[in-house]
């Protein structure tokens, strides 16, 4: 098998292309405002040469908001995924490696969060915390780690049972040392894949929370655009240009990350099959 170099599969290429498109968009949002049509002060103007994606209910240029929103959606996606992956990895490695009571206690907590529906709990927490950028990140990060924790735990358990760990104990290595230097590098592949998948989930969750009205009104995201389209009657007005583009952006960016994550996961699975089979 070819071990050197990382050649993405077709699926991963598709994902990379989608993400590059989103990032290009985010970069464009840093261009000076006048580049994409001015606010026209006429509400629900359909797409035209002066406003490529028309205007919304208060006459703002939809394309300009869309570009601004890409920053919010993407950064919340990345931050939320970082927090949740961090939590999941720490808990998973700890539970999987220590085993016994620690494992059982952490396992019960993980199970709790796996069974309790995440989105309603997020809505509840976000409603109490109040809408703000960091609150959305924290709510996603604190509630989206269980799947990661479970997968990392399973892998860490497998690693813990393999002879090289036993050998290290026999040489006199300490547990924290083994956890950081041996277990962590071995779960790294799954952590990375989970992170990419978590970015996708975080983008979707952020959009969902914003759609309900729990997003930061100071920094309207794509989900917030859908929220306004719903609550301010753009849908009933038939102004499709206000809600079709943000929906496409949410779908494509989350799809892009999902495709890459899936590719990484399957690659990871096939490369570690031999270890899993014996122990």
């Amino acid at each position: 098998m070819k071990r050197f170099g990382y050649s993405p599969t077709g699926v991963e290429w598709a994902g990379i292309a989608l993400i590059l498109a989103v990032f290009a968009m985010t970069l464009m949002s840093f261009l000076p405002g006048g580049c994409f049509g001015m606010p026209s002060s006429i509400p629900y103007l359909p797409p035209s040469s002066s406003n490529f994606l028309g205007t919304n209910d208060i006459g703002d240029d939809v394309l300009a908001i869309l570009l601004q929103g890409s920053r919010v959606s993407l950064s919340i996606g990345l931050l939320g995924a970082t927090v949740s992956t961090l939590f999941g990895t720490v808990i998973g490695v700890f539970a999987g490696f220590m085993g016994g009571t620690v494992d059982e206690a952490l396992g019960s907590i993980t199970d709790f969060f796996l069974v309790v529906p995440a989105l309603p709990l997020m809505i509840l927490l976000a409603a109490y915390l109040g809408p703000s950028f960091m609150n959305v990140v924290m709510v996603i990060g604190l509630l989206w780690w269980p799947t990661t924790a479970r997968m990392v735990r399973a892998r860490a358990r497998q690693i813990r049972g393999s002879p090289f760990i036993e050998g290290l104990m026999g040489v006199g290595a300490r547990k924290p040392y083994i956890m950081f230097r041996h277990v962590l590098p071995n779960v790294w592949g799954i952590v990375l894949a989970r992170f990419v998948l978590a970015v996708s989930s975080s983008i979707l969750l952020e959009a969902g929370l914003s759609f309900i009205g729990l997003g930061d009104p100071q920094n309207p995201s794509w989900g917030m655009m859908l929220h306004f389209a719903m609550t301010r009657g753009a849908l009933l007005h038939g102004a499709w240009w206000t809600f079709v583009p943000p929906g496409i952006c949410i779908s494509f960016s989350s799809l892009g990350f999902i495709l890459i994550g899936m590719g990484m996961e399957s690659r990871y699975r096939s490369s570690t099959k031999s270890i899993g089979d014996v122990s």
Partner: protein
Amino acid sequence: MKQLSPKSYETPSQRLLDSAPLLGCRDVVKIFKSYLKGGFTALAGASISIRRGELLALIGESGSGKTTLAKILAGLIQPTSGEVFFGDKPLAKMGSKDLLHFRRKVQFVPQYPDLALDPTWYIYDSIAEPLRIHKEARTREEELEKVRSVSSRVGLGLDQLRRKPRDLSGGELQRAVLAKAMVLSPDVVIADEPTSMLDPSTQAKIVHQLLEAKKENGFAVLFVTHDLSLAEAISNRVCVMLGGSIVESGAASDVFSSPLHPYTLSLLSGSASGLEMNRGTGCPFYSQCDARMGACSKSSPPEFMTGKARSVRCWLFGQDY
């Protein structure tokens, strides 16, 4: 096994048999807990001792408890009862400093070389790791020197040291594992069927290198194997294991030329089948033994000494009969 002439290693010198045991255990019982079957007795009162500089072969069929005994001696698993001692100290009563010394001086070589090294680490780092854990090398240069010398002794070149486990063959991996075990200049190397996963020619080369290194450094080896001809060719002393205890032990030449225990006899003649072993009271070989007597089913025979450093657990050799 043409490369190994039996004569060159088979030297049961009196000096070796007389020296005090370096590592050993007494009456070790190990019961693996299992919620389904209520527990599995892997070791039923096994005693063994390894003397300085000797090559002790532990032979027996699969399921006889060889690996469990080896792991208990290496301090990898805790016995249910009985005690393991290193030098004159029991392992259970060692402080952290003594324990660290034990960990440095007793090294374990596992059965599956492809899982014995961290797949994410370079071979060099894996071999150097024991040095780092015990802070045995003060500088990078000293570490490099030690790793290189121990690697070249087992036939590993710099090229292989720069790779990761997945890019090495099974033989190369086993060499790396051996190098890792020897880098701390141990007193005892416990090798659990180190060559059973390899093809015969590689097997012979690696065993040869292990023996060369042993000659040079003078460490003792506990060689766990089910390969009788290999054991006969390389060992000074032999322990035969059955049903979780040592049924016969003695100098390799004695055991192989004139086995005492009926089980050893059938093992050497190739007719033994450990699967039908008696797991109840009495001798584990009871149900298959041609020479069984009334006493054999009632109680497990104790260790009878039949000569210097020669013992057998069989009622045939009891003074009462």
